[in-house]
């Protein structure tokens, strides 16, 4: 049955490709990254590729999907011993979108769970400023960060000085290998002020299987026009714990423009704390109260390449750790059909 579903999806993809060949071309985009992480003296090398396929069909339909393939190369005893490699692959989302109106888009299939901003907006390897996910990334995104079901999203109200955006979803329990998801329902609502590029929002998830859990969170984004500054923050709470992260990034584009050698540089800092709550089965949050600070430098090279280097210090009752990350990322985009860009 599941295989039939996959074949049906493939048929839809190919049909969509041929239908849309006359206007928008199907594309494959995404990121390729090579990440080197040294945590507590143990180094791991991690090549990652995360292709995104987007197939527009007509004026209102879109099929889109992202998969992630990565490999962790590490030494058997941490800093010594022979090297081993583990390979991972996942389908992050495979969804059909229908733009019903200016206020509503309907999504069915597997989609990223819309809780706060990190999972949906900052997760791709070519977007996030620091390699490590926030400590609270597991709150509100149980079980896999993806949901299988249906979602409504859009801008409910749009005024000259502000707009109200929202998402609401229901997910079924699915145990299929690449499409695993928990039974849950939830959503996010945010107020965005375009004039100041300020957004404030809240999220909620009700986990509807095993031990029913409520998770809620709030977030803000501020990118003032007056300075090349980005400020992002999230807070999240659930039975298993609560925490927050605050990230600031400053790009030196005021010095001879964003494409000068200095203007391509961006400094990033992040502080975060997690406080452990009550024990919850299958929780992916840290197992103890944890604090962490990160400092990083991003360098935006031409042709969609980016270099990142960061240092983090993590404080926990399990032990304090230094974490060094070094990564190079290439953001690619090609037509899915040969000659499709013409």
């Amino acid at each position: 049955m599941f295989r039939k579903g996959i074949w049906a999806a493939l048929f839809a993809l190919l049909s969509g490709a041929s239908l849309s060949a006359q206007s928008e071309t199907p594309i494959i985009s995404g990121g390729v990254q090579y990440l080197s992480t040294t945590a507590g003296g143990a180094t791991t090398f991690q090549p990652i590729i995360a292709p995104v396929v987007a197939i527009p069909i007509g004026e209102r339909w879109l099929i889109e999907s992202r998969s992630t393939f990565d490999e962790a190369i590490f030494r058997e005893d941490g800093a010594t011993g022979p090297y081993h490699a583990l390979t991972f692959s996942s389908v992050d989302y495979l969804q059909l979108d229908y733009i019903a109106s200016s206020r509503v888009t309907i999504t069915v299939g597997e989609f990223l769970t819309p809780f706060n901003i990190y999972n949906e907006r900052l997760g791709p390897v070519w977007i996030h400023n620091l390699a490590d996910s926030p400590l609270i990334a597991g709150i509100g995104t149980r079980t896999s960060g993806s949901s299988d079901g249906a979602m409504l999203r859009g801008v409910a109200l749009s005024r000259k000085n502000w707009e109200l955006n929202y998402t609401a979803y229901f997910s079924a329990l699915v145990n299929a290998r690449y499409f695993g998801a928990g039974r849950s329902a939830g959503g996010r609502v945010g107020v965005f002020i375009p004039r100041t590029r300020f957004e404030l929002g809240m999220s909620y998830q009700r986990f509807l299987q095993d031990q029913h859990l409520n998770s809620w969170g709030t977030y803000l984004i501020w990118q003032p026009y007056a300075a090349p500054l980005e400020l992002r923050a999230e807070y999240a709470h659930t039975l298993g714990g609560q925490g927050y992260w605050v990230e600031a990034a400053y790009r030196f584009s005021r010095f001879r423009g964003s494409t000068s050698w200095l203007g391509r540089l961006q400094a990033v800092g992040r502080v975060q704390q997690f406080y452990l709550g009550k024990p919850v089965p299958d929780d992916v949050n840290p197992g103890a109260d944890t604090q962490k600070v990160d400092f990083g430098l991003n360098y935006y090279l031409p042709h969609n390449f980016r270099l990142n280097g960061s240092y983090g210090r993590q404080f926990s009752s399990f032990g304090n750790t230094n974490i060094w990350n070094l990564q190079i990322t290439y953001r690619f985009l090609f037509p899915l059909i040969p000659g499709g860009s013409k």
Partner: protein
Amino acid sequence: MNSPLAVRLAFVLLFAAVLAATAQNSAPQQQSVKSKLPPVQATTNESEEGEKRFETHCGRCHVPPEDLSPREARAVLRQMRVRADLSSEDERLILKYLAP
């Protein structure tokens, strides 16, 4: 996987290749986008408004992609219309900016 030196060497070579490939190109990103596109048909005002809307909506998460053809830009914008909750007017104007 008994050769950590080979892994590190590959990493260093990859860095060197990227730096070598990009050393010759210091052209501004937006010029690079537009240089591959057909002659400008959009009005300057619409293109400027599209740039503003790109900075307002898309720039909240990422910098503009380079080397987009008009047809690719349409597909990207369809995707972003869903992900970034763009209106049809946002989509039209940003397209004028990315692929006039």
